[in-house]
């Protein structure tokens, strides 16, 4: 079992222990009885069967006792689950956005991240938002999971982490080609550290040091934003066109139904990120990519451009 790190862990684990405990008792008990019978009543040792039609008393007993036990299981399951649905009024509010095939998290101050950063011992209320198809947000260490359904307003989940550390976060509703790569991390921090991180909005404008490798920074962006789930770096087609050799080429596109050629330059990159369906690369389908307006800044696009240029070297 995954070691837990949230306020729900105890209730959920108790239900697991109760159900699995009783189940193991019956599984092992009945299996041993069967093995005993196979030995004891083997036709070599017991050549003549004794005919028994049945017993109403036994039927009642083995209806009532299991019924009582499963009602107990229902109860433990209910008790462990109920607090998950009692969303508190106060807490850190975060919007989780899912798209094929990456998560992003928007904080109330406008900060957007790829990992989920949360303070320890504080209620965290996550609004679940899916842009394209059904996804599901699952944090095994917290014992929480809730589907992210496109078009479903006010869909929320909450939890209160109680241990500092990094934990896996998965998409658990099958969402297409790169579903299994749609995972990230939850970073649970000390509250002081978290609030310092939270208010440090300078991180939004990345301080680029003198002599920094711009192409490398661009590459990190392309990786963290999930671009590579659809755009390969080796010339192969995944969902969208490959990045390899794209920079400086002439791209055959369809704009408002008109076929034309445009130069793959900085303006084209910006338009493709903010309005993906404006110029559709011929041979590819519209509607596959959603706008990254508000998620990738223009400054970051400059870095991505540096990275795309570097692919031609």
């Amino acid at each position, binding site marked *: 079992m995954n070691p837990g790190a949230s306020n729900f862990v105890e209730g959920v684990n108790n239900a697991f222990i109760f159900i699995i405990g009783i189940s193991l008792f019956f599984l092992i008990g009945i299996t041993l009885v069967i093995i005993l019978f196979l030995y004891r009543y083997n*036709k070599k040792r017991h050549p003549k069967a004794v005919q028994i039609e*049945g017993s109403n008393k036994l039927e009642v007993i*083995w209806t009532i006792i299991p019924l009582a036990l499963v009602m107990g299981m229902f109860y433990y399951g209910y008790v462990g689950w109920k607090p998950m649905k009692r969303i508190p009024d106060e807490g850190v509010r975060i919007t989780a956005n899912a798209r094929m095939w990456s998560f992003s998290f928007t904080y109330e101050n406008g900060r957007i991240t790829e990992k989920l950063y949360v303070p320890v011992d504080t209620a965290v209320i996550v609004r679940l938002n899916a842009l394209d198809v059904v996804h599901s947000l699952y944090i095994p260490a917290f*014992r929480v999971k809730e*589907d992210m359904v496109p078009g479903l307003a006010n869909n929320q989940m909450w939890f209160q982490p109680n241990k500092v550390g990094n934990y896996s976060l998965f998409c658990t509703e099958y969402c297409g080609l790169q*579903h299994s790569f749609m995972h990230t991390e939850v970073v649970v921090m000390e509250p002081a550290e978290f609030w310092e991180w939270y208010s440090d909005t300078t991180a939004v404008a990345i301080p680029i040091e003198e002599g920094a490798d711009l192409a490398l920074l661009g590459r990190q962006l392309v990786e963290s934003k999930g671009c590579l789930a659809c755009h390969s770096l080796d010339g192969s087609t995944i969902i969208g066109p490959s990045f390899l050799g794209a920079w400086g080429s002439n791209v055959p596109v369809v704009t408002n139904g008109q076929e034309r050629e445009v130069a793959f330059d900085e303006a084209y990159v910006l338009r493709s990120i903010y309005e993906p369906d404006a110029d559709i690369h011929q041979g590819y389908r519209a509607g596959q990519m959603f706008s990254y307006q508000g998620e990738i800044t223009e400054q970051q696009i400059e870095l991505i451009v540096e990275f795309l240029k570097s692919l031609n070297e």
Partner: protein
Amino acid sequence: MSDSNNAHNVSYLDYKGQYKGLSAWIFSTDHKRIGLLYLYTMLAFFSVGAILGLLMKTELIAPGATIMGPKAYNALFTLHGIIMIFIIVVPGLPAVFGNFFLPIMIGAKDVAFPRLNLLSWWLYVIGILIVLTSQFLGDGPPDTGWTFYAPYSFQTPANVLPAVFGAFVMGFSSILTGINFVVTIHRMRAPGMTWFKMPLFPWTLYGTAWIQILATPVIGITLLLIVAERLLGIGIFDPALGGDPILYQHLFWIYSHPAVYIMILPGMGVISEIIPVFSKKTIFGYKAIVLSTMAIAFVGYFVWGHHMFTSGMSGRALYTFSFLTFLVAIPSAIKVFNWVSTMHKGSLDMQTPFYWAVSFIFVFMIGGLTGLVLGSLATNVHVHDTHFVVAHFHYIVFGGTGYAFMAALHYWFPKMFGRMYDLGWANLGWGIFFIGFNALYLPMFFLGMQGMPRRYYDYLPDFHGGNIISSLGAWVMISGIIIIFANLIRSARHGKKTTQKNPWGGKTLEWQVETPPTLENFEEIPTIEKGPYHFGE
């Protein structure tokens, strides 16, 4: 043309006589031949589905790309699911052994509507062919999983429609078989065979048939709505068009949960036949088993919501579905207790069908008990859509229905083919299969509790250990399957001939007729005086 109401010297099976060779099979209205047609079709597709599963497990033996890319993997688990669910386990036992043995076990010469029965097989084959076109035509094989969840199934460029339409056509095959069996059981039982003198396998076929009739139309309508949405752009399920994806999940599971009972009930019936015969003892609690069968068939309609505990349904709906789910566990438990009690003070004859039946009880218990973990809300949230679920339903559908199918095949084989299989090889195959099966699926429970989501082409290194054992188990299990099938296929053609009517000492009617059964099963319709398992005298 013939008519069963004609004078008794005109058989309604006559017109089969005008055909020869292959046509004498595919146009035969004889229930036994139709049962065998289903058997051969299923075994062929089962082999395909099993190989797909083996490829998937081989891919998962290590993180990262092993033998294929994500696109191939997603297509594989979709096709594996469609084949195993729609082509194998849903028609499964009723179509093969129900067709072959239901009329014989209730003392009838055929089912009520022999030509409708043939039509069912044809619809089944046509449905399969339509599904297969999805693999070869259009923009690539479907990659949605067998559940075709909206809105992904509308957005993927893959060729989803033929698969959906094929499943729709197969649905009609299922409904027609259901109607046929209900009428057969109501109208054609031998004189003296009251409801409570009917053997338990026909009883489970009866419960199953009602589910087939009442639940299958729901999936039919749902699949048609998908077609309407994809082709005509009517917004029903796709939120981009104003539809509701949760509605799709409800409609899908309103059918697909009862369908689980379509799969497992006849399996329970087979086990209820085999255990008394090899214990030389009447079944313990006949009426309790009958009542639990009907209770499962009934309550099974009201628990579909437990597939959607994390979908965003209201809390009240969630605990109601959880409560009902626990109720449906009870009749299954009652059956297990009665089977084990049947063995008590019996005279146990350890033969291949009995090995399968006893191991059925073991794997079915694991499947059922882990179902309790999934029925409880708190634990479900953690393991929902993880490998735990995959392990659970393979224990039920493959462990339950699959073991029962193997048990039935080894039990009725001599009657069906008039030849005996090699018992040594059969037992060896069973042993290897049993070990491989548990090595394959048991680790998945642990992977799921650890947090590994299902339908993952790739996984984090944390999950490597369980996956290695599971993948090796798959290879062991496949070796077992090869031994079992090779033995049965060889024996069906060259096995030792037998005309012995009753090799296992059974009491039901199929063991009183010729081996293999004659065209009309009975020279004279028997009159029934005793219960089906009167081992006393």
